[in-house]
């Protein structure tokens, strides 16, 4: 009830304070300069271009970091096998004579999955 009365009083003020209303309208009657909308849109376009550039740069940095980490992991994972192959070659043996390493299969699967997913992501991202 009290609130309703207060709101009613405010509406009365808004309707009847003609002098105050006139002064307020006169005070804030300044129009924006010519081409305000055009200049604002120019700023928005420039801002959007800046944001797009920043986004692209972030993506490139993140993708490079992820690819480098993934390659590092793959190399570390298969290092012992590469070493075995190298030693076999140095002793004049063929690859088939190298000791069997079960990590090879797992490593190759992980590697193929990762680079397959990266390929799909990049194609989608750059619309290739």
């Amino acid at each position, binding site marked *: 009830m009290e609130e309703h009365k207060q*709101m009613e009083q405010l509406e009365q003020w808004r309707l009847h304070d003609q*002098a105050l209303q006139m002064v307020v309208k006169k*005070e804030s009657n300044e129009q924006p300069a010519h081409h305000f909308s055009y200049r604002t849109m120019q700023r928005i376009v420039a801002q959007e271009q800046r944001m797009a550039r920043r986004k692209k740069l972030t993506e490139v940095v993140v993708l490079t970091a992820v690819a480098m980490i993934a390659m590092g992991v793959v190399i570390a994972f298969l290092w012992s096998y590469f070493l075995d192959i190298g030693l076999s070659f140095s002793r004049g043996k063929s690859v088939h004579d190298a000791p069997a390493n079960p990590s090879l299969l797992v490593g190759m699967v992980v590697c193929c999955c990762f680079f397959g997913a990266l390929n799909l992501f990049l194609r989608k991202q750059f619309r290739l």
Partner: protein
Amino acid sequence: MGPDERLIVQRILGGKTDEYAYFLGHVADAEEVAQDAFVSAYIHLADYRTDMPFATWVCRMAYNKAISMLRTRKRQLQHVVVDDELLEKVSNEMVSEAFGVPHEGRVALLEKALNTLNADERLLIALFYENSKPLREIAYILGMNGNDRQSVNTLAVRIGRIRKKLYVMIKRMEESDGRT
């Protein structure tokens, strides 16, 4: 050109080109704030999930930008403080009677009195009288919770106090005019 302005001109000529904004006045500042608000609204458009109209949402951004601009430029509008006791003595009817019919002399005094309000008070009066915005939208623009009844009541009380303050200022000016 007053002595302050001469000093400003000397500083501009001395290389402080930023100070040229002084001569552009508040219109240039207002435009800068308005543009910043629109750009900011565009950037955060995905966050617009409020029940308020778009214009009110942009107004809130403009208000925040204006406040931070005033802070960074350390610019303060000079405002007059009126005692609470004095405001208590003024009734709403007295104020309504004074602000009802726009006489030429009264309008001129009101213009001067409006300039004695601080930035928040002026904005509140402009939003209430010129834009005729609902109180919940005004509360939202000023950073309060527009859906909270307490905030809306606080604003209603503040508007009443600003009216009384304007009335007191007008009376003071009339008295000093009468004396001179």
